[in-house]
């Protein structure tokens, strides 16, 4: 009844990953072909995901470092930019600075993006209830000894963890050659590397509203159409090859 494949993937991710990566090269669309167009509706670049977003929480140097890291985690190629080049650092900046806005920029609105028809609603951000705000402030800012937040003990927030990540990577990371960058990324604690990679994936393959996947570059590289409502897919597109 649920998104079962997600469970399958998570539950035996190691085996699946090795199978999946081994099978690369048998792709239905071999590298070298032109990147396919989005197929549903009239896909247009999203003007909201431009590169001139005000920096909220990251310093200029941290932004450059994170951009470089994300481009090593999800590199660009002839199909499009890497996660950093497509705005991955903006994604993290907006997340860590989400409470600079009211409503906080945690949940984009709905029901349609406007990319495939209908009125665009994703930039009508949704408000958080008090419990939801508490959860997201703990996640982002940490408990900081606040009795209202420490019902299960102290939690280090993402802001503090990112600051530690930047310290570990060094302020000169963006200027280093790729192999040095990779060594430093590999030297991060597992949980921090996973955090940054998770955000890189969310940035690059999530909706451009959140700051990454600029102009749909991440989706275009993999022929993913994103939100296809209200058009959807015709019965023929669903049932046919």
């Amino acid at each position: 009844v649920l998104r079962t494949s997600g469970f399958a993937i998570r539950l035996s991710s190691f085996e699946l990953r090795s199978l999946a990566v081994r099978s690369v090269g048998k792709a239905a669309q071999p590298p070298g072909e032109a990147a396919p167009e989005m197929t549903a509706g009239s896909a247009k670049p999203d003007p909201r995901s431009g590169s001139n977003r005000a920096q909220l929480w990251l310093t200029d140097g941290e932004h450059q470092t994170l951009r470089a890291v994300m481009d090593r985690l999800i590199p660009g190629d002839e199909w499009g930019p890497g996660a950093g080049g497509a705005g991955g650092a903006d994604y993290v900046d907006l997340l860590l600075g989400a409470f600079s806005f009211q409503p906080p920029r945690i949940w984009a609105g709905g029901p349609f993006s406007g990319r495939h028809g209908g009125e665009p609603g994703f930039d009508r951000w949704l408000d958080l209830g008090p419990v939801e705000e508490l959860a997201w402030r703990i996640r982002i800012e940490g408990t900081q000894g606040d009795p209202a937040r420490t019902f299960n003990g102290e939690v280090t927030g993402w802001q503090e963890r990112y600051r530690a990540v930047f310290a570990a990577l060094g302020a000169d990371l963006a200027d280093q050659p790729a192999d040095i960058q990779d060594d430093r990324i590999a030297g991060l604690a597992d949980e921090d590397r996973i955090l940054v990679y998770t955000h890189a994936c969310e940035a690059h393959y999530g909706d451009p509203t959140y700051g990454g996947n600029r102009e749909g570059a991440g989706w275009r590289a993999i022929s993913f159409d994103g939100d296809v409502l209200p058009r959807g897919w015709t019965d023929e597109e669903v049932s046919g090859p």
Partner: protein
Amino acid sequence: VNADDLDCDAIVIGSGPAGATVADVLTAAGWSVIVLEKGRNHLLDLEPPYGPLGHFSNDEVKCVQRHFLGPDPITEPRTYRRTVDDGDRLMTGHVNALPTTVGGGGVHADAKLPRFREEDFLLRAALGPVDGADVVDWPLTYAELEPYYAEAEKAVGVAGEETNPFAAWRSGPFPMPPGADMYGATLSMAAAENLGLHPYRAPSGVNSVEYDGRPACVNCGFCGWYGCPIEAKGDPVALLRRVLRTGRGEIRPESHVVEITLDRSGRYATGVRYLDRDRNEHEVRATHVVLAAGAFETPRLLLRQNLANSSDQVGRNLMYHFQTLTVGAFPFRVHGIRGRSVTGAHDDHIVGDEAQRKAAVAAGLPWIRGGLVEHGGAGQPVQEALVYGPGAHHGAAMRDSSLRERLWVFTMQGEDLAQPSNRIDLDPAVRDAWGYPAGRVTYEPHPHELVMSDHAAPILESVLREAGAEWTITSTSPPRGADIDLTPLGMAPASYHIMGTCRMGADAATSVVDPTGRTWDVENLLVADSSVFATSAGYNPTLTIMALAARAAHLLAGEPLPPTTAYR
């Protein structure tokens, strides 16, 4: 309690498929009802004309990564251990977190709505006991429930076809014909048929045509884990809208029930106390209180008060579906992102055959039963990307997309036998944001589930290869064997089908509620959700939840539906 002091006839705790059904039936019968829901309201405007709020969207970041439908594991953590040997807990966080939101689990489900079969209600009588499990008969039969199944199918709108040879009898046709087959399902259903199985189009609470003022589904592909932005899924928005339109029903979101209040005898509920979004306390009073908070939160609330628990069965006999997940990667794109997530199914492993009987005997079991097998597509790209990992291979792997665009998935919702030691209780240390003890799962499967999964897996893999898959692999949830040491978040059963924790029975000594859903100990307190299931069957539970809730509410209102017979 004086009638003048009452706020309403019935208080319903929880607004998911169970609570929505109870509220719908009772308000239609002229009762006044207040529905208290702990979560936010994103489902529908609570003011006339009760239209959609426009909050749902096809947004993987919001709906899958950022806990939009709740509960957030930071503020509402749950804990998990396999047995007491694991200590107080093995993990804390996201355990069977069905949505905490107006509409409950109905909002995020992809709405597969099969009925149980006649035999499912008489399992012990039909097949006999199994050592180490507590196999029982339900205190009611399929025939008694059939009128309510039919009513539930009409209420939310179920699209289906009568080609499943193993299905129970029906008193009428499905309200709608099935929707479009997903491409992968056309392949896997044909392959299943080639190998002697009996696939059919899965009954779905997703409109194939305009129904009850809601549009036909446009196949956007974001079903499981997403609320439907266009209301093509009827469960439970159709029910809750009808409740509001009567003028006798009220929905209060962000209302966290903290206590069921009792009179001095302790055998009669007077109402509930709850906290609103600002944690101000309120008390509401009614002649009846109906618990419909789901099979996790309902026992958690009762255990906090040790209420309705003279049998010591509250929280026990926790059942999931033991999920066997077989995936196949095809050498071409099956685009599982288009369509209703799951459009095909087969029931052969529930009914079994000679080979299945032999597998049971070989394992020293009297019988084994599997579950409905869903033929469905894969998920969205963020989840896929997380699996491939970072590095130079990443872009090629994503374009190749063997785990999304080229993946087809069988999920067997295997019958899980009740065991009293599998239970929900209160964690001794972990708390929610309100300071209450977190619910804790103690669960490990019975050998029945493992033997059945081992028997079904090679069959499912052979079907996917017959359909054209170039490789196949099977995993289970909960994981087993070498998989057990995977990430802690993968350890707990991932199934959100949670059942049995306030089981229904004919004997007050061994059950929590009577055959009409009333708790044995508190005469005007009912349980209407899947807590009352006596067995798990091998079928997605939601339609049975609604049928049982409808029956309980009709009986409570003194308006039972007349008996039915097969229509053909």
